[in-house]
Every structure is written in C-alpha cells, then in structure tokens.
C-alpha cells in the first residue's frame, strides 16, 4: 500500500481544460428576478411586516399593578384564539394601564382575524373592545386635507329599459342562439310567425342569460360578461372577470354574481365576484373550491340576503354591506343542503343522522335566526328540498330505508308554511321518483314515478283540511320531466332526449289530457312567462340534426315549426312582476268579456289580413309563372319543325300524337298470394 500522504498527482491523468462555466462576454441577463423567484420573493420580509401584525385594543379596563396579571391572562385567553401573540405592550400612566394595549401576532393574517372577530367584543357592561390594525391609524391620520371630488360621469341614457313590455300586442320576447353559437337573435313571439327584433353575430361566446325581471340580457366573453338592454339592446354594463363561466342574478336585479375557475389566489379571492349592476363596481370577491352546485350563493327572495354552505357551516351575508350577518357564520354540523323560501326570508336546511341524533329538517327565520320548525326524520338516505313558488309550501323528498328492509322508499314531507306552527303532512310513495314539481301559484303538485317503461304521473292536491288528496294518476306515460305553466293549472309532461320527445298537455283543473303529441328528440321545453305558449326544441348541443324550435299553445295545438341552422338555445324573456293590485286584477277578470270582444276583433282582422296577403302573393306568383310558361310554350311551338326533323318525321309532342303506333295488350295484375306447404298436397 502506498503512502497516501505523499501521493503525487496521477501522472497518467492529463490536465484537461475545464470548460468555462461563466456567461459569454456579451450575455445580457433578461430574466427578471420577479419571474424566477416569484414565490420566494413573495415571502421577502417587508419593512412594514412587523407593523402589519400589530393590533391596538381600546376600551381595555384600566387596572393597577395588582390586577395587571389577571388582566393579561384574560386578554391572552381572548386574543390567542386568532394566533400566536409574540409581543404585548400595556402602556401605563399614573400607576394604572392606560386603557389601550398593543398586541403583536406572528403574521398579519392573524392580526386581521383579531380585528374581524374581537372588535366589538363585550368584556363586561362597561368595556366593549375596539380592535384595530396599527397600520390603520397611520392610514387614517394621513388622509390628505385636499379633497378631489370624483369626476362627474356623463349620464348614459339607455332609453326605456322596459320597452318590450309596452308592445301593444303583448308579444313576449325570446332569445335564440343558432348557427352553433355564431348568431344570437331576439324575436317577439307572434302566433303566426316570430318577428325579429334584433340579431347579432358573435354576440356571445357561449350562451346567454336573462335577468330575473327581464331587464338585462347577459352575454359571455373570455374577458367577462356584458349586460344589454333597452329598446335597441345597447350595452348597459360590462364586468371584467377573466374566464367567467357561470353567472347568477339577485332576484331584485341589483347584483350579479360571476364565477370563473381561473382567477383565484390566496390573498385576493376572485373565483366568485359580486357586482353592483347599476354602478358596475366590484362589491366583494370570494373563494370557491368547486362550482359543482351553481349557484353557490343562494339569494333570499327580496335580495336582502345571500348565503352559501361550506363544510359544517352556513354563511349568510347581507346587502348592501356584503358583510356576514351578525359578523359570524352559523355552525351547523353535517349540513347537507339548504334553500331559501321563495316568499319569505326563511331558510330550510337538513342535516343527516349523527349517531343517536336523527336526521332533521329545520326552518329558520332570517335575520332573527329563530328556528320556526324542526322535523325529525328516521333512517334517512337523502333529502331534497322543493319549495312551491310563492313559498306557501315546502316539500322535502325523503329517501329512507325503513328498519329491517333493504329497499329505499320515498316520503314527501309537506310543510304548510302559511298555517300556524307549520304542520307537516306525509305522503308515502311506493315507487322510485323520477320527477317532482309544484304548481307555481297553487297547491297542487305532480310526481313522475316508477321505472321505464311503466312510468306513472300522479297529481296531488294539498287541501286546507289537512289532507293531501291524490286527484288522478295516469299510467304508462312516456315522460321524464314535468313543466308547469308559470300561471298554474296547465302543464306538459315531456319525455325528453332518450324518450324521443313524447309530449302530453294536461289541464289539472280536471286532470284531463288535452293533447298528446311529439317533437322527435326534443331536448328542452320552455313556457312563456304568461303561460300562453310552450316551446319545445331540439338543441344542436344535444342532437346534431333537425335542430328547430316548435311553438305550441298551452292546450297543445302546434302553431309553428321554426327550423334554424344548428339551433342551440331558446330562452323566454322574463316579465317583471305586475304593477296591478289584487283588486285591479279582480276588476279586469270581471270585465274580461268586454276586453275579449275587442281582442277577438283584432285577431280576426290580422288573420284575414294575413290570408289576404298570402292570397295576393300567390296570385302574383301564379301570374308571373303563367306568363313565363306562355313565352316558353311559344318558343316550343316555333321549334316544332326541328323536332319533327330530329325524329324522322314522327310527331312526339303529345303522348297520343301517334295512335297508329299503339298495340293492344292484355296485362296481368297481381291480386293475391297464397302459400301452400308442399307436405299438404
């Protein structure tokens, strides 16, 4: 073994030039630090970091040294909830604490939490904490004395935003998207044929939505959404939200909520944004994990509140402040689903079974948070909440596995909202439920149940005497969806998509089938807001051929078939609620005969005008055509000699020009077919 100490360089190793690892002479570094180290730089300590984590608590009891320790413990207990307190400072003067203290947390977020939650905390009768960020003092003290009044925005007159309601013939409008999304058009619905109001190419990139009262049309674009309205559909407002995919309006049309899966960072929640429609301002942004059940935020019927459900929590916010109601969310363990009553500020929610506690449905009044009604349910698998449109009834569809059985049965728990103490009646259903729908302004509901091909449609009436009566059941129906007229009484049972578009028009006042028809491969059914017309359509999004929308009367009489190249979607424009009082409506109904006389006259006039127009058009077309044929015939006759020449003198102008050529023949005609098996012979 060689002595390692005296080892010399291996003579056989040749010194090679080590490659140079430095940049070439003229290299200019063009990669910014921000790009390379973005995430690291974000955590670079800022000069103000320390200050950002400091909060000032005011209205702290002024105590002497003997009670200081106790005070500090109390403060600690309250404020360590929001994070780790790294430093605390209790300034003193004249032997007692001054009444305000400074607390430093380990991060600015914790300080924010403290401000959010502890501000307003009542320690005792005389001391309510005021908590603020230390940096806020600086900010507010440094407000400039000079105040620049905001520049006056020029008034944009969009004209009469309710123009379409003033149509003298009361035609409702609807939007149509066709040519696979390239063209969007607005039509006024007339029984004879649609009247085009507006048509634009590439108005929207995906689809459109109307606002709940019909004032705005929202279109989608890569950069956000735009709202259009007024007589000429001018652009009213624009909201920038990159990659927006879903929107929702508040019922009062004051706010619009947009969702984009792209824009969400930890510091600045941007997935869901709530905008004020009139000013165009962004009111608040929220995080969102998934858009699975849009709308994530559900609005109360008057737009005063909106709420969302997250794990074990129900967060209710109020407008216009956009802040949490009572500054805190409701903790509801296991909450599975909730919804607002469409008529009152009541939330219904349900929680599943938890060990010994049965599943239950709760009705809670807002903003008082008073529980109006709680209903316990046993052996529950799932619940679905169905409100009647006026909030008069709530139906909870409960799927349960009764003890000792394997199968799932369904109960409808009907909550009578208008009666004292909200009594609940139960309807048991023996078969699996395919669809359920309340009559919008009445007390009936329709259920589709059973398994294909034996699907039954049942109609129930929730009576005042506490009973729920089965009015009628139609069996062997080809239906998978229920569409009530928005005015009630009439409805369509439809077998959409896989059921090939079977349609049944029902009058529920006596549960009769007014008409049974079909729109092959129909994918959608839409009632107009007045309940006079129904549109069935075959959307290009679900079926690539025969894209069209058909217009029917509410009784099921087919009025029009409108084929549109690659038709995608039709949406009726909603109407704002009526301005007439209940008394006025009664008066009009009483005098209806008087009004209908004038309307019928008008209809007859327009009908005859149309047929007269048609007849005139046809007459002109026929005359032109005849004239053309006469000319052609004249030329034809002039060429007769040439024809004779070409056919060797044989006159073939008429079929019977050459009777001499005819022969007599006997022809056999096939009459009957008899099959005789040879064995029998």
């Amino acid at each position: 073994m060689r002595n390692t100490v005296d080892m010399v360089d291996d003579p056989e190793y040749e010194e090679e030039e080590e490659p140079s690892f430095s940049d070439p002479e003229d290299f200019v570094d063009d990669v910014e630090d921000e790009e390379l180290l973005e995430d690291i730089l974000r955590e670079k300590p800022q000069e103000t970091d320390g200050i950002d984590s400091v909060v000032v608590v005011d209205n702290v009891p002024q105590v002497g040294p003997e009670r200081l320790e106790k005070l500090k413990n109390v403060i600690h207990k309250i404020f360590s909830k929001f994070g780790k307190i790294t430093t605390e400072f209790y300034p003193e003067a004249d032997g007692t604490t001054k009444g305000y203290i400074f607390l430093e947390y380990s991060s600015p977020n914790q300080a924010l939490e403290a401000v959010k939650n502890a501000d307003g905390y009542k320690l005792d009768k005389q001391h309510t904490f005021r908590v603020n960020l230390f940096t806020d003092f600086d900010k507010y003290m440094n407000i400039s004395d000079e105040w620049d009044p905001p520049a006056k925005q020029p008034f944009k007159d969009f004209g009469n935003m309710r123009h379409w309601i003033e149509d003298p013939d009361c035609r409702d409008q609807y939007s149509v998207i066709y040519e696979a999304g390239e063209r969007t058009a607005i039509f006024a619905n007339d029984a004879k044929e649609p009247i085009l109001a507006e048509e634009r190419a590439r108005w929207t990139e995906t689809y459109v939505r109307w606002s709940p009262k019909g004032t705005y049309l929202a279109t989608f674009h890569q950069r956000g959404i735009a709202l259009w309205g007024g007589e000429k559909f001018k652009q009213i407002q624009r909201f920038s939200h990159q990659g927006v995919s879903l929107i929702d309006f508040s019922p009062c049309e004051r706010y619009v909520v947009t969702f984009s899966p792209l824009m969400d960072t930890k510091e600045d929640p941007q997935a869901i944004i709530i905008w004020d429609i009139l000013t165009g301002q962004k009111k608040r942004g929220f995080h969102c994990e998934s858009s699975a059940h849009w709308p994530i935020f559900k609005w109360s019927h008057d737009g005063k509140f909106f709420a969302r459900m997250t794990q074990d929590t129900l967060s209710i916010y109020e407008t216009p402040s956009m802040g949490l109601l009572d500054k805190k969310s409701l903790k509801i363990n296991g909450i599975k689903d909730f919804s607002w009553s469409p008529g009152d500020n009541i939330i219904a929610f349900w929680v599943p079974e938890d060990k010994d506690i049965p599943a239950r449905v709760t009705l809670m009044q807002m903003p008082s948070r008073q529980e109006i009604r709680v209903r316990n349910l046993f052996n529950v698998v799932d619940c679905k909440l169905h409100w009647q449109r006026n909030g008069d009834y709530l139906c909870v569809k409960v799927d349960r596995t009764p003890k000792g059985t394997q199968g799932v049965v369904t109960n409808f728990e009907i909550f009578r909202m208008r009666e004292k103490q909200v009594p609940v009646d139960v309807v048991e259903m023996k078969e699996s439920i395919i669809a359920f729908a309340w009559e919008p302004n009445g007390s009936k509901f329709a259920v589709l149940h059973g398994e294909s091909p034996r699907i039954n449609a049942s109609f129930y009436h929730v009576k005042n005497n506490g009973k729920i009566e089965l009015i009628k059941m139609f069996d062997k129906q080809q239906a998978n969806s229920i569409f009530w007229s928005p005015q009630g009484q009439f409805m369509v049972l439809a077998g959409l998509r896989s059921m090939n578009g079977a349609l049944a028009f029902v009058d529920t006042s006596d549960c009769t089938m007014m008409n049974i028809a079909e729109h092959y491969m129909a994918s959608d059914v839409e009632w107009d807001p007045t309940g006079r017309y129904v549109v069935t359509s075959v959307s290009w999004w679900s079926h690539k051929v025969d894209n069209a929308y058909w217009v029917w009367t509410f009784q099921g009489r087919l009025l029009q078939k409108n084929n549109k190249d690659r038709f995608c979607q039709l949406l009726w424009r909603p109407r704002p609620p009526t301005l007439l009082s209940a008394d006025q409506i009664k008066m009009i109904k009483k005098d209806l005969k008087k009004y209908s006389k004038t309307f019928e006259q008008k209809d007859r006039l327009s009908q005859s005008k149309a047929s007269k127009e048609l007849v005139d058009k046809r007459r002109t077309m026929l005359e032109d055509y005849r004239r053309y044929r006469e000319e052609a015939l004249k030329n034809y006759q002039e060429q007769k000699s040439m024809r004779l020449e070409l056919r060797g003198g044989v006159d073939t102008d008429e079929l019977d020009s050459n009777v001499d050529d005819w022969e007599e023949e006997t022809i056999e005609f096939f009459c009957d077919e008899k099959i005789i098996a040879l064995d029998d012979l």
Partner: protein
Amino acid sequence: MKPILLQGHERSITQIKYNREGDLLFSVAKDTVANAWYSVNGERLGTYNGHTGAVWCVDCDWDTKNVLTGSADNSCRLWDCETGKQLALLNTSSAVRTCGFDFSGNIIMFSTDKQMGYQCYLNFFDLRDPQQIEDNNPYLSVPCNESKITSAVWGPLGEFVIAGHENGEISQFSAKSGEALKKVKEHTKQINDIQSSVDLTMVITASKDNSAKLFDSTSLENIKTFRTERPVNSAAISPIKDHVVMGGGQEAMDVTTTSTRIGKFEARFFHAAYEEEFGRVKGHFGPINCVAFHPDGKSYSSGGEDGYVRIHYFDPQYFDFELEA
C-alpha cells in the same frame, strides 16, 4: 294511394327513368343490376346483365329501342331494350356518373368522374358512325377542369347539355363545339340531380344545400326555388300540373340519428308557382335517391336507399287539389 313495390335490387337505387311513352320504368342500383319493369303492374320485363360495378345512371331513347347505362366499372354500355343484348361497350378511365340520349336518339353523352388522377370529361358519341363506337373514340370530349360534373341532361334540341357540378354551378356545354356556353351559380352545394320538364323547356335541379330550383333550359334563369330542411337528392316536374316532387334524405351516417320510424322518409310535393309544399308521401325505409313522374302525369315513382322502387298512382283528389289563390 296504394303503391306498387318493385323488389329487384339488393342495394340502394341510384336512378330510375321512364321511357317516353311511360309504359316502361328502368331502375339501376349499386348492385350492378339494371332492370326494366312494366310501370302499369310492376311486372319485370328483364335485366341488362354485364356491368361489374355500381350502375350510376340509365337512359332510354325516344323510340324505346336502346338503353344506355353508365357504371363505376369504368364503362358506358348500350343495350337493345327488347332483347337485353349488349350492343356496345365503351371503356373509360374513371366511373361514368351521368349519361343520356339526345332528342333524336342519335347522339349519346356521358360524363366521367374525377378519380385517380383522371379528369372529369364530358364525352359525345354519334351512334350513326359505328367507327366511333368501335374505336372508342368520341367525336367530342370536353374536359371539365373546375368542379366535376355530378349530373347532366340534354337541352331541347340536342344542341347543348345542361350540367350540374359538385360546387353547385349549372352550365351549358355545346354538343357541337364543347364550349361552355353559359354558367350560373345559384346553389351553394353539390347538384345531386337534374331533370327536364316533358317539353324540355325547363329543368329542375336538386341540391345538397336543401333546396331544388327551377331553371329555364335556354337562358338558365332561376325561375323558382323550393326549400326544405334536408338535402334534396332528386326532383321532377309534373307533365300535366304545376307541381314538382322532391325526394331526399341526409348523409348516410346521420340516418340513424333522425326519425327512423318505419317508412318515415318522404317524397314532398310542392306547388311550382307558389313554391309551397302541399303534400308528402311516406313509405321508404331510407332516404329517397331518385324520383320520376310518369310522362302522363298520373303517377310517379321513387327509388330509395333501401333498394325498393315504389310506383304510386294518384288518387282523384290529387288532380282536383288547388291551393287557395
């Protein structure tokens, strides 16, 4: 009306044609077979055997002496109508798409497809000159450089041929010089069929753009347009009334996604002057590929993708029917 069903083909019908007097109906199909039937009772007269590929077109001369067929086996054949004997075989370099006798029955034309490097040609042979047939040497061969010819008929006096092209154009080619006399573009997609009125003064074109149009044969002026929501495969003009009949369907691959309930493929009747549809006849199990009126206008026939030819005799109501005007 109860139709007579002709079952003589195993694959889809490509064309049907009546002879001038209407007693015979010829049908050709993709199964290489060409049939001749008695139109009065549906009895088959006979078959013209010889083609080895799908037969695309058929025509009969004015005297019902000769029958002309064109096929995807790259040949155009002349037959004796009564005996079925093959009289002439004209080989071509690509499939023969359309063929026809002129008014006199002496000159035949046929067009070949643009395939496998070969151009689309419109060829003319004079049957009075047997040398042309023997040498397979047409007296006129017109190359069609732009859009290929998909359908063609002779003009009124054998002076020109009216051709429909793949791009929707209609043109007139002189039978003497081969010059393109006129060209119009009214349709936006391929012309599937052209048929003349019985006096040859008008032609009706059926196009994949879901419409059929009526043109004046000489001026190529677009007189009328008939619109539907499906591609129109064939159209014909009634000899006695101001009616046209149209048959169509959709691309074969879309067939199963539309209403395929039995017999739902319909022939549609339009009023020629008002351009309005007034009737439909169901019955075919697949798209209709060809329609034709009987020369006396009392019946019409249709051949479909389902391989059936249906002959319909009109009820008395059809002749009395009038649209309010």
